[in-house]
């Protein structure tokens, strides 16, 4: 989850003219003439919020590092398709019990072997309640997991031999293998458990890169990574290392790209969104990744339950001109949503039945709102809550204005000063308005956009949505052994969601980035992070 920090507002230049929405393709693999495999790639990052322990790393600042220094069972390619890395095979007959074989002879950078125990111990640690790991909920599907008591060793995890272990889930989950590339599922060396605080400061991994010695993490400044010579997997770096500079503002990182102090950026400050693609022509990217912006109207609000609520939600959705907002407010750096997931996800479709509710139609919206008024007349102001420290103000105001103009109701944004205050009001259900919601996928699968948000009682079901039909379809999808069959079920879930609109999809997030002339082969992944290992740099 990316927590956006506020930068100093730059003066945005109003740009006239059309901006193409088409994703700018990443640099074509050109000749690597003059490229050196020893040159270090400099890129932007932010001070990790937590110690560098995979099961406790859930924000972009930290995960950019853990993803580089730990290799998981599988990795995702640029399109989000999973491939084996440490795993040799992941097999199951029933989507409930998985037998995982790992490659023989792999080592951590301190010489310890990567074996079945490296995974089982790390997962047990991550799942145990007493350790209160931020990613503990990733293990909740494994047999024996509990939020009510500390389970030191999950009965669902069994080591068979040095390179084999089995995972038993409490119920079939067909997308379990897809999750295994996520940070939470990385292995840890046995020595990590001697002193995890020290380990979090100087982690030892098995990934393509490793820390450049003790104290490579210079807090609030940068972290230097060098190539792990022992890494023998599909993500072998063709550069000499990675220097991740922690920027407090996006403006500073952009100035450094202009000044030639940084090679690759995966963020562009608001003030430069209109100009960066022409300034870095052929060296920039604007493509959708696995994230979506929505807003949620909890059904506990008056006028938003039952038939009346359905009509009003559809009216709200149809009253929003997504194209206009993504063009004018975001300079074409967001893509209007056509479903509840994201275009880079396998199984994505623009033509799900009922998706037309996301199309702008002011007359139809007014009509639906009038039908709802016939059930019970509307009064008061429609408000959308948001955190004022994340740059959300402009689009929330734009949405509110469109609702005001197209429905003829009073509508406005309801800012909360800080992210903490905003999330607390949502978590303890004290918020009495609609509110902005968003989701960035943990792993590239349709279910990750649906189950955790719209399942009854699910962790991030902030609107308390509940529909037994959705629940049973989600379960059916999970118990399919064939992914395509599973995706079909999940698309049926979306058909119901389009009727109920537990959240109103707005647009997909785009990754906006640019790179310097000295680097080549820059490609951004399904989760917006550049594929650093394949970047070449000339000196």
């Amino acid at each position: 989850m990316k927590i956006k920090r506020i930068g100093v507002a730059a003066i945005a230049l109003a740009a006239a003219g059309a901006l193409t929405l088409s994703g700018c393709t990443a640099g074509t693999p050109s000749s690597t003439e003059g490229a050196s495999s020893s040159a270090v790639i400099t890129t932007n990052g932010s001070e990790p919020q937590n110690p560098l322990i995979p099961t406790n790393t859930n924000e972009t600042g930290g995960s950019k590092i853990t993803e580089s220094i730990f290799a998981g069972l599988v990795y995702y390619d640029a399109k989000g398709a999973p491939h084996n890395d440490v795993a040799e095979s992941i097999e199951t007959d029933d989507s409930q019990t998985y037998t995982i074989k790992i490659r023989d002879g792999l080592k951590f950078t301190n010489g310890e072997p990567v074996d079945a125990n490296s995974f089982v111990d790390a997962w047990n640690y991550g799942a145990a309640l007493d350790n209160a790991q931020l990613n503990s909920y990733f293990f909740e599907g494994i047999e024996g997991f509990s939020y009510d008591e500390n389970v030191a060793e999950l009965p669902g995890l069994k080591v068979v031999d040095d390179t084999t272990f089995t995972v038993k889930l409490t119920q079939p989950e067909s997308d379990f293998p897809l999750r295994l590339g996520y940070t939470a599922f990385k292995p840890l060396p046995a020595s990590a458990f001697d002193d995890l605080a020290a380990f979090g400061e100087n982690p030892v991994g098995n990934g393509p890169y490793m820390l450049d010695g003790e104290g490579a993490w210079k807090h609030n400044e940068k972290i230097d990574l060098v190539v792990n010579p022992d890494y023998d997997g599909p993500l072998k770096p063709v550069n000499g290392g990675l220097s991740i500079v922690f920027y407090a503002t996006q403006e500073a990182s952009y100035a450094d790209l202009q000044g030639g102090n940084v090679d690759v950026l995966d963020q562009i400050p608001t003030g430069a969104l209109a100009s960066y693609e022409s300034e870095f022509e052929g060296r920039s990217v604007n493509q959708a990744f696995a994230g979506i912006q929505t807003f949620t109207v909890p059904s506990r609000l008056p006028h938003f339950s039952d038939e009346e609520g359905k009509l009003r939600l559809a009216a709200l959705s149809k009253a929003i001109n997504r194209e206009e907002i993504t063009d004018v407010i975001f300079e074409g750096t967001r893509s209007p949503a056509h479903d509840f997931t994201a275009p880079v996800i396998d199984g994505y479709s623009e033509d799900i039945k009922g998706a037309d509710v996301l199309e702008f139609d002011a007359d139809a919206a007014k009509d639906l709102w009038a039908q709802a008024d016939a059930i019970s007349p509307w009064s008061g102001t429609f408000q959308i809550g948001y955190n004022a420290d994340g740059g959300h103000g402009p689009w929330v105001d734009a949405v509110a204005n469109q609702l005001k103009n197209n429905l003829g109701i009073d509508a406005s944004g309801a800012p909360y000063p800080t992210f903490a205050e905003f999330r607390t009001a949502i978590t303890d259900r004290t918020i009495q308005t609609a509110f902005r919601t968003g989701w960035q996928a943990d792993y590239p699968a349709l279910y990750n956009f649906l189950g955790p948000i719209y399942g009854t009682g699910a962790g991030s079901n902030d609107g308390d949505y509940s529909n037994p039909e959705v629940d049973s379809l989600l379960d059916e999808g999970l118990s399919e052994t064939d992914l395509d069959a599973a995706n079909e079920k999940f698309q049926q879930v979306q058909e119901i969601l389009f009727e109920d609109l537990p959240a109103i999809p707005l647009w997909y997030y785009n990754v906006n980035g640019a790179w310097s002339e000295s680097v080549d082969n820059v490609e951004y992944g399904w989760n917006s992070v550049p594929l650093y290992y394949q970047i070449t740099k000339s000196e």
Partner: protein
Amino acid sequence: MAGYIVRRVLQAIPVLLGTTFLIYFMVFAMPGDPIVALFGDKTPPPQVIEQLRARYHFDQPFIVQYFIFLGNIFRGDLGVAFSGQPVSEILGATFPVTLRLAALAVFFEMVAGISVGLISGLRKGGIFDASALVMSLILISLPIFVVAFVAQFIFGIQLAWFRTTVGSGAPIQDLILPAIVLATISFAQISRLTRASVIDTEGQDFVRTAASKGLPRTRIVPVHILRNSLIPVVTYLAVDFGTLMVGATVTEGIFNVPGVGRTLYQAIIRGEGPTVVAFVTIMVLIYLVVNLLVDLLYAVLDPRIRYAK
């Protein structure tokens, strides 16, 4: 003199206790749960929140948290940030950077401000004076982020005389540009202040006496005029130094300086109570010390001021 210093130092103790209490209370009263915010847009399981709240003592009432904090301070433990880094280490890493930046800025504004102010004052109404006035007015009216962005664009990106942002370790050569930016604002104030003070002093009897005694101008200007004109300027400089030590959040953000302002800002956003309180405590200490030094400096500059008893 010694008695005066002891008295001032003793006075600092209740001030420090009071400020830590107030700051701790304000951080505590900040709405929103920092633990919930750790999970981003995702909603954490309540049991995990409880565990984490207990770990950081957030589940205790305010006064208990405060005394745990105070007790730890007396044992030399300032607490840890969410990232696991001890707060004392963060202090040790950021304050020297800000100290260097502040010292550089004060140096620039002092040299430029006093010389411009002195010449303006001595040649009151001349072309130099008039153009210095116009320049000061422009600089005073510009917001610092405009100065910073423009300086970064021209000197960092276009001319490439300086690095666009401050590199790792914050070496002096990287800090020159941000220091000049910080100095521009106070430079205007100092030159105006020096000018007024110089004009005032020039009209004093002892200056006329010195001139009629036949002392050369080269002696009158530095010894009689300048020295006696510096008292308000020194106060201003010292207060300015204190302000800069507390961190120039905007400038540090634009030039990515790993200093106090940027770090404190991040800690406030993340709701890291121990870091915020420790930083503010040190800042209060700096203010107290700087103020004491200013008071002592008066006596050095002006023999008429004595701290009896």
